């Protein structure tokens, strides 16, 4: 029970629980029922987890959907806003641009108008100066009305806008009479007070009234011909003209009247210049100017014509509408243009050189502004793009959400599947384990039943029942293994072991079955394979057993051949007995091509691709073995070959009926091989046979001191006679293991001739039965040759008996020739015994210890002085018994104190096994004290004060091993802390004891 519990310590929680609560009920089935509810726990857990994930997913999805409900309008409105912003901005820009354009055009027109007016005004001024020069400064005057009119007429092109000019002279009241006389007419009033018919402009001179007396007068004396009728009119009599004249003489510049209707019914203004007696300084005061003024020159400007003319000169006059206003008064007086005031007006101030008069020009596009198509299309386009982007984002988000949803669902399903798988494994493990316990009871009882008095029928029934039970237990073990592997709880051991022994053991196991079926069973391990390897012998045995078992199951005739090589060997000579030749197999039957079974191995393909690369494993201590099991069975149908390694898969349903088994073995083997970092493969030919090959990476053991070649066979020569080289090789291999020097021959006649020549004669001759029968004609000769000398240690003849040939029929041969018969399959231990028996020198001890492993332990412990410390007398007795069995000489101590007194150096003990839990003084404490004593002695030795008994000893350190019932890590650490050398579990276990003892005894041997 302890063993199982320990082996299972890595097992599932459920299983541990069981182990810790033993004795609750004998039949484990009851417990199983109790255990099943906790088994559902992971399901429940996963269910709650599922629920949570589900809720979470739904929540997220709902969130996405909820938000999309208000996100869409929000998005649309945002883009509407953006689009309208863009529209507004663009249209504003367009309007601005249009306004600027208008302003520029307006400005152009205004400037042109100004310029033209200024030109006219300047010329008017020049005319004024002309008058002043030639009329006033000359006496008599150089100008008369005729000259003036003529001159004015001829220079009219200089004043394109003046329709007429007139000159009025300043006449004071005192001078009036003389002036009237001189001119021949009286000064007339400009506007008759009676007839208001002529509101503006002077009327006919004949109709006009005479000017009433005033302080001064400004009668027109010269005028252009078109305006001849204004001569003799007093300029000061009209309100506008008077104002103009007064302002003109004050300022010395040209002044303008307000616009008025001209005779031709168009709007015009009069510009007036004062003519001075002498030239005035620019900064003359108004008073001085009034004093100096002697006449006034007036010109009539036709504003409408002026503006029309100037506008004609500019392009684009159609698109623009121009209005000119006089804005001197509150109410602007329209001078030009239709009197409409639309929107989009541009106002420009005009300067016509008269500071007191203000003019403005208003411009406006005739056409209303066009629709801002660019802005409209742009903004609509952007809006559409925004909507499209929004849709794309929405679609993407929706898709992501859906994919996430799917993912969640899938991971949920995956999780569920995984949970189910784990649950399955756990269930299998639990149930298998629980079935095993009662099955043991059943089997035990059946065993007991068989021992009672039963008749033949009953015995048969019981035997069948027991066989079925055993089959069930082995099946359950397999299922348990599978479950363990699947749940990843299987861990490999790493212990030193001898692969050859393992192979021999497996062969022994199948010995009976092979003999029943008449199959030849053989093993060959290459001598490149180290003696001791570190790995998990149990698992390797399991794999090989499974493969060999399968082979035996499906093979009716021929052989099963197990070979072990180092991978490098195979690498270097890939042609190693590929088994294609029919004759060159173990039994002569054809086999499947072995090479094909590993052609898919990655190890090889990698190697072949880069042959110069050093072998990966050769650098370290690890070694790759390639192990093949070859049979001549029915083979695997090609359609079933693909699922050979699938659990619970068999070639067909009939297979299970005929051969039994679950089909789980190969799957387990594959997993185990995988755990050993190896690969498994096979080659099979229906009706020819199958070859399964696997590789495994193991570790080379360093302390391979024991060659295990018993010295007893040293110097013995053997001859193997076999016409089949492969079989001869197997025999040779086994003999070599025993240290027998041997040679092979396939031809007896050749050998006989050799004996005749008197060369060295082999002491042992091993002949295969088949060869014997084949060459029976020459054998009697050989036998007599070998025996003729009649010496006591004459050559021994061995016949290697094949199980398939009936022993009885040939038994006379053995008697006749005094042959020793060795039954195949060959195994080292069996061969050893046979040879010993034949040679007569049988070592009693070796014989008894038969098993190699024990003999190693025996040789390690023999004659060793060992002290066992335990307060429990029963334990003491058992431990002592076990150690004595291995040949050790045991001293018992029942307390730590006693142990200390016994182990006070110098003493003659080689090792100490110490119980940990003891009353008064526990094992740790005792060990500490012993170590202290040893250190003291070591110091003495160093100082050379050692007592004489310790001469030749450099350092004392007795190996102390703890014995403990609970093998847990903490205890182990504590052991090392109290300077123990290791621990063994209590009660003793052969394997572990050996391991621990070997660890220091082997080292010790090496040191010494």
């Amino acid at each position, binding site marked *: 029970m*302890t063993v199982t519990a320990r082996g299972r310590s890595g097992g599932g929680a459920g299983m541990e629980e069981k182990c810790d609560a033993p004795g609750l009920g004998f039949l484990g089935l009851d417990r199983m029922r109790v255990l099943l509810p906790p088994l559902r726990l992971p399901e429940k857990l996963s269910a709650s987890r599922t629920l949570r994930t589900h809720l979470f997913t739904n929540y997220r999805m709902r969130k996405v959907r909820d938000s999309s409900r208000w996100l869409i309008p929000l998005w649309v409105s945002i883009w509407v806003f953006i689009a309208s912003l863009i529209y507004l901005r663009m249209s504003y820009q367009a309007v601005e641009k249009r306004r600027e354009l208008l302003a520029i055009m307006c400005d152009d027109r205004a400037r042109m108008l100004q310029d033209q007016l200024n030109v006219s005004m300047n010329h008017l001024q020049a005319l004024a100066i002309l008058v002043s020069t030639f009329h006033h400064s000359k006496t008599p005057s150089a100008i008369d009305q005729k000259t003036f009119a003529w001159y004015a007429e001829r220079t009219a092109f200089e004043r394109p806008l003046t329709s007429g000019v007139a000159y009025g002279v300043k006449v004071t009241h005192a001078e009036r009479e003389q002036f009237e006389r001189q001119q021949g007419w009286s000064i007339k009033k400009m506007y008759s007070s009676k007839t208001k018919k002529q509101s503006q402009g002077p009327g006919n001179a004949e109709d006009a009234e005479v000017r009433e007396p005033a302080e001064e007068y400004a009668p027109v004396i010269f005028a252009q011909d078109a305006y001849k009728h204004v001569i003799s009119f007093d300029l000061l009599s009209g309100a506008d003209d008077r104002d103009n004249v007064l302002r003109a003489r004050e300022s010395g510049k040209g002044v303008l009247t307000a616009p008025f209707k001209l005779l031709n019914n168009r709007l015009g203004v009069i510009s007036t210049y004062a003519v001075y007696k002498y030239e005035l300084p620019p900064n003359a005061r108004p008073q001085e100017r009034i004093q100096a003024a002697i006449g006034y020159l007036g010109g009539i400007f036709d504003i409408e014509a002026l503006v029309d003319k100037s506008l004609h000169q500019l392009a684009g006059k159609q698109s623009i509408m121009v209005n000119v206003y006089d804005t001197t008064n509150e109410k602007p007086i329209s001078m030009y243009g239709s009197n409409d005031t639309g929107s989009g007006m541009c106002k420009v101030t005009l300067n016509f050189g008269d500071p007191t008069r203000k003019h403005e020009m208003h411009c406006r596009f005739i056409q209303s502004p066009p629709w801002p198509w660019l802005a409209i299309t742009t903004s609509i386009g952007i809006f559409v793009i925004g909507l499209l982007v929004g849709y794309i984002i929405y679609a993407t988000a929706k898709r992501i959400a859906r994919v996430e949803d799917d993912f969640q669902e899938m991971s949920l399903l995956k999780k569920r599947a995984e949970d189910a798988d784990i649950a399955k494994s756990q269930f299998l493990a639990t149930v298998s384990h629980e079935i095993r316990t009662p099955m043991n009871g059943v089997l035990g009882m059946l065993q007991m039943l068989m021992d009672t008095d039963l008749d033949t029928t009953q015995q048969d029934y019981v035997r069948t029942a027991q066989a079925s039970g055993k089959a069930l237990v082995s099946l359950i073990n397999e299922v348990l293994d599978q479950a363990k592997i699947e749940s990843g709880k299987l861990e490999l051991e790493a212990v030193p072991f001898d692969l050859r022994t393992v192979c021999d053991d497996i062969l022994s196991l199948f010995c009976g079955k092979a003999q029943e079926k008449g199959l030849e069973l053989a093993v060959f391990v290459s001598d490149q394979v180290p003696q001791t390897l570190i790995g998990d012998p149990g698992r390797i045995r399991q794999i090989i057993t499974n493969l060999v078992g399968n082979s035996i199951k499906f093979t009716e005739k021929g052989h099963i051949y197990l070979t072990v090589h180092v991978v490098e060997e195979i690498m270097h000579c890939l042609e190693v007995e590929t088994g294609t030749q029919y004759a060159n197999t173990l039994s002569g039957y054809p086999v499947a091509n072995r090479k094909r079974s590993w052609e898919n191995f990655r190890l090889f393909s990698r190697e072949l691709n880069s042959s110069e690369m050093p072998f990966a494993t050769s650098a370290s201590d690890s070694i790759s073995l390639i192990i093949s099991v070859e049979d001549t069975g029915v083979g695997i149908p090609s359609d079933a070959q693909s699922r050979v390694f699938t659990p619970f898969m068999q070639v067909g349903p009939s297979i299970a009926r005929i051969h039994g088994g679950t089909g789980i073995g190969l799957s387990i083997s594959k997993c185990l091989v995988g755990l050993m970092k190896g690969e498994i493969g096979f080659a099979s030919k229906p009706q020819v046979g199958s070859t399964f090959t696997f590789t495994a990476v193991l570790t080379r053991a360093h302390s391979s001191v024991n060659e295990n070649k018993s010295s007893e066979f040293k110097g013995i020569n053997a001859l193997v006679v076999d016409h089949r080289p492969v079989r001869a090789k197997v025999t040779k291999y086994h003999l070599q293991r025993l240290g027998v020097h041997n040679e092979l021959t396939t031809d007896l006649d050749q050998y006989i001739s050799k004996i005749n020549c008197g060369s060295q004669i082999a002491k042992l001759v091993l002949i295969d039965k088949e060869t014997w029968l084949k060459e029976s004609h020459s054998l009697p000769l050989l036998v007599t040759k070998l025996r003729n000398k009649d010496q006591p240690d004459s050559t021994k003849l061995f016949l290697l008996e094949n199980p398939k040939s009936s022993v009885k029929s040939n038994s006379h041969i053995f008697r006749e020739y005094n042959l020793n018969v060795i039954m195949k399959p060959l195994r080292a231990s069996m061969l050893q015994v046979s040879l010993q028996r034949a040679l007569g020198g049988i070592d009693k001890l070796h014989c008894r210890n038969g098993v190699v492993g024990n003999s190693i332990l025996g040789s390690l412990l023999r004659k060793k002085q060992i002290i066992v410390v335990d307060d429990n007398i029963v334990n003491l007795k058992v431990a002592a*018994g076990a150690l004595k069995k291995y040949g050790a000489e045991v001293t018992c101590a029942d307390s730590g104190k006693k142990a200390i007194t016994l182990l006070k150096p110098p003493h003659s003990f080689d090792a100490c096994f110490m*119980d940990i839990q003891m009353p008064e003084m526990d094992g740790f404490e005792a060990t500490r004290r012993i170590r202290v004593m040893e250190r003291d002695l070591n110091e003495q030795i160093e100082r050379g004060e050692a007592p004489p008994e310790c001469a030749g000893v450099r350092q004392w350190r007795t190996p102390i091993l703890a014995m403990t019932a609970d093998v847990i890590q903490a205890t182990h650490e504590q052991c090392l802390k109290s300077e123990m050398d290791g621990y063994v579990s209590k009660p003793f276990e052969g394997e572990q004891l050996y391991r621990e003892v070997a660890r220091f005894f082997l080292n010790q041997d090496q040191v010494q």
Partner: protein
Amino acid sequence: MSAANQLAALIANMFATGLLDDQFQQLQMLQDPSAPNFVSEVVTLFCQDGERIIGELAKQLDKPSVDFDRVDAFVHQLKGSSASVGALKVKNTCIQFCELCQQKSKDGCLKTLETVRINFYELRGKFQTMLQLERQVNGFPPNN
């Protein structure tokens, strides 16, 4: 039925009923011509030792104030002995006993002591039969 058969059946029964485990087989394997009475010696020792310990345990638990550490020590000893002999049932009960000692539950201890006693005396009876049969097989008169 021969004594040898009876002996084999008895031992098989003890295994099957879970009284014994593999360790007992180990013991049997240790018996060889150099130590012919190994198993019987160990078994006798175990029976005597076990009886003593159970007596001690009863005494300890009878006291008004129980020293559980002492009880634990005794139980531990019995556990060790039974493990060495392979007395599975007794060992398992001892493991339970140890736990109860750590919990310092007197009632539990008394109850378990009773179980231990029953298991132990069952095993002792079987062992005694076994020894007797063994003597018969080995050719000693049964009344010796």
